[in-house]
């Protein structure tokens, strides 16, 4: 470990000696294991070993970056990178990399995930749980992914840190009929808290309820969102508070700092805590990560920053530096005060939606978008599930949905799947009023 840190530090020293103004080097040793399954069988099991050092340097406000896959040709690579910087173009808005000497909490990564070589048993546990819920004729597919990364960051501006990051996730979709499916996910930073059967049970339970769906109707509905689908929305809002996305208008939150954007019951934060799949103790500039409440009781409080965007916005970095632009790590919505059942009781004639995919915007600044619910769409009347539905689309506005949140459950789930809920989120069940639903004609 010390050896890798020293080699990473050497890169920074060499770059400085060659004339770089500021340098950050980050070495990551990643071990990733994945099993992909469909029709109740494992299709392929995959292992990736990835060794990479990302180097970002600034010379007279010119920012350039490279990746090195070994420590053998450091001198040549650094020289080449500096040459690139010298012919590159100045970024007058570049405010420098984060400065300071920081202490970081000890990583709580799970060493068991470093050593886990064959994760397929968990797949069969999840498939078994889905079958138990919905019968042996159910067809399940999905992925199981484990991640263990050792990360070493050294900055010429002070930060030096070592972190280990672990995660395990299972995503299972179960079909009880051709057009009746349920999706469950189980996400954790530790093996101890990882319960694959929980995801299988949920997928099976929804798949069973979803049988014999009928085409849904257009209209305006009150909707209870399952944590999985609401995670898709949380990840959208989380991305939209990245200061970079605000600056390029890929956000509905432009010029809305200090304004009320949601009801008082809504508090959203970015929090790469130890329990999150996106756990980390420092960002890509070596700044300690922290909990950042960006919507506090309905009011937009901050964007997410690296050191440079923070300077532009005359504030401090929030510890969200990616290699070039700031990113959310793990988005959370605060707990509500309602039981899950109470939320459903609020639906006189509404919908319960469990998952979605293919969220696309007409206009990010305005917020108009649509997304396609899947895996269990239910018509609910007076709190009772009346009919499984299919073939509908949410065609609405990102700000309106945020503004129409009317309740949240006391329970939350850690969710992540594919690109649809990314970054990972911690979401309750959420009631949203007046959601616009359309369909094919």
């Amino acid at each position, binding site marked *: 470990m010390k050896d890798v840190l020293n080699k990473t530090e050497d890169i920074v020293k060499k770059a400085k000696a060659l004339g770089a103004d500021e340098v950050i080097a980050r070495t990551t040793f990643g071990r990733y294991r*994945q099993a*992909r399954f*469909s*029709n109740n*069988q*494992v*299709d*392929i*099991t995959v*292992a*990736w*070993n*990835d*060794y*990479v050092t990302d180097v*970002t340097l600034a010379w007279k406000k*010119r*920012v*350039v*970056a*490279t*990746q090195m*896959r*070994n420590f053998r040709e450091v001198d040549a690579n650094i020289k*080449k990178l500096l040459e690139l910087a010298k*012919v*590159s*173009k100045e*970024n*007058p808005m570049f405010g420098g990399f984060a400065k300071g000497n920081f202490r970081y909490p000890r990583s709580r990564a799970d060493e068991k995930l470093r050593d886990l*070589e064959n994760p*397929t048993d968990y797949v069969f546990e999840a498939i078994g749980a889905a079958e138990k819920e919905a019968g042996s004729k159910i*067809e399940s*597919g999905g*992925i199981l992914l484990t991640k263990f990364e050792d990360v070493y960051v050294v900055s010429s501006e002070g930060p030096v840190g070592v972190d280990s990051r672990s995660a395990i996730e299972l995503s299972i979709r179960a079909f009880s009929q*051709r057009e009746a499916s349920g999706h469950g996910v189980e996400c954790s930073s530790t093996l101890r808290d990882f319960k694959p059967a929980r995801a299988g049970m949920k997928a099976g339970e929804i798949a069973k309820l979803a049988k014999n769906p009928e085409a849904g109707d257009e209209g305006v509905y009150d909707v209870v969102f399952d944590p999985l689908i609401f995670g898709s929305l949380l990840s959208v809002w989380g991305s939209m508070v990245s200061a*970079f996305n605000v*600056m*390029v*208008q890929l956000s509905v939150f432009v010029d809305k700092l200090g304004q009320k954007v949601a009801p008082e019951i809504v508090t959203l934060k970015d929090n790469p805590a130890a329990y999150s799949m996106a756990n980390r103790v420092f960002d890509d500039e070596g700044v300690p990560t922290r909990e950042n409440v960006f919507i506090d009781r309905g009011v937009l409080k901050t964007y997410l920053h690296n050191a440079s965007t923070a300077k532009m916005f005359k504030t401090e970095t929030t510890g969200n530096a990616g290699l*070039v*632009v700031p990113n959310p790590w793990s988005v959370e919505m605060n707990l509500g005060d309602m039981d899950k059942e109470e939320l459903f009781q609020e639906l006189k004639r509404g919908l319960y939606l469990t998952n979605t995919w*293919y*969220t*696309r915007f*007409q*206009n*990010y*600044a*305005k917020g108009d978008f*649509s997304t*396609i619910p*899947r895996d269990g769409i239910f018509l609910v009347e007076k709190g009772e599930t009346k009919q499984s539905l299919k*073939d509908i*689309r949410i065609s609405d506005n990102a700000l309106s949905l945020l503004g129409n949140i009317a309740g949240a459950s006391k329970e939350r789930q850690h969710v992540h799947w*594919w*690109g649809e809920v990314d970054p990972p989120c911690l979401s309750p069940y959420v009631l949203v009023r007046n959601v616009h639903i359309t*369909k*094919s*004609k």
Partner: protein
Amino acid sequence: MEEDIVDFALEYARSKKIEYAEIRAQSQVQDRLMLRNGILEAYVSAVDSGFCVRVMADGGIGFASTNKWTREEAKEIVDLAFKYAKAANRKEKLVFAEEKGVETKWTVDQKEKMDNISPEEKISALVEIDKALASCGVNIAATMSQCSIDLTSKYFVNSEGSRISSFLPKIGAYIFITVTEQGKTEQASEQFGYSGGWEAFDEWNINEKMVHDAKVLRDVITKGKAVKPGVMDLICGHEVTGIAAHESCGHPMEADRILGREMSQAGRSFIFKGGPFWIGARIGSGVVTIVDDPTIEHSYGYYAYDDEGVKAKPRYLYKNGMINEFLHNRETAARLGVRSNASSRSINYDREAIVRMANTFVVPGDMTEDELVEDVKNGVYMKSFTEWNIDDKRFNQRYVGREAYLIENGELKHPVARPVIETTTLKFWTAVDAVSKKVEFDAATCGKGDPAQGVPVYTGGPCIRLRGVYIK
């Protein structure tokens, strides 16, 4: 790339009790530039290089990759892949469709070699786009411009005797703009892509195209009127034709999806054995033929051999309105009793190759664009789109117009603000009654796989005319 390590890995894999093994090595020289509002945020220049092994044993498949070029690492990943293949413990054993070993080399020429283009020139080309936008008389609130250059060398060997070396240079660009007028905003993005050299950048005419887009957005804000919802005719420009071909023909015709292998993420297909749609079933009118062709020279989705070493060829997906031929790799082809049609692609050495499109387009007809318009009494001409999506069985889709005009009595009238067609695959392609003769292509990045693998593709086609569809 160290080919001796690749050969060693294959020999080591062969020493085990395997049905099949392949090693795919890839080295990619990458340049990435990103500008925000005309300012260079960062210039990233890197080389990514590594190799993977895929092994079939006991009817299961294991895959492992590394970017550490040592024999010890090669042994380790072969051992892992072999162990994983055995551990799959499949009831239904996998096999691959038959292919003969191939020894060949292929490459794509660059008229203007990327190596001869200085970083300053690349930066300047992007800066010029912003300058053109800044002086076009439209209020541009924000821009983001990106350029990517990938020089990819591959070396593929398998246990059946294949040995294929290739070099594929690619260049891509992505521009996103926001126009503000009268306190309202509209946004547009354009993607460009090419297999070849820097000559593409001039041929794209990005400045002209983005200025056109900016003016279109301004006109949508200042002159655009909402369409009165109802049944009418629709003419789709090549962008809309192309995305529809990609989403509602290309994707549902991927055999891995049809067989359920993508059931959890990308989903299944409305096409399935025993269902109403299978090979030979009608899905559109007789004028609809959609092809996926990786062999179009210098196309963004070009390749001569796929990532399983199978020679590329055109695939006739929908032919004269009938479902005709699925996209296959060797695994799906074996399951459906046919040969692979070379649709196996991977974005990098650390990703499994899966069934993918290349360049998907509607085959041209014999009419001019004007002739299509002349025969419309009441309709919309949707030249380009903003929001789009489709469900995971690839049947319910939606396209929202960006540049669109009302057609009245055969003449184009005022801009239409964000007209929407939300319909099914069957209704969309069945409604097509005429196809123009000029095909144009657009670059896109097609998403699929977990972890996501965005592969470069073209979408395209001529203008097509749909009769009596619901527009809102």
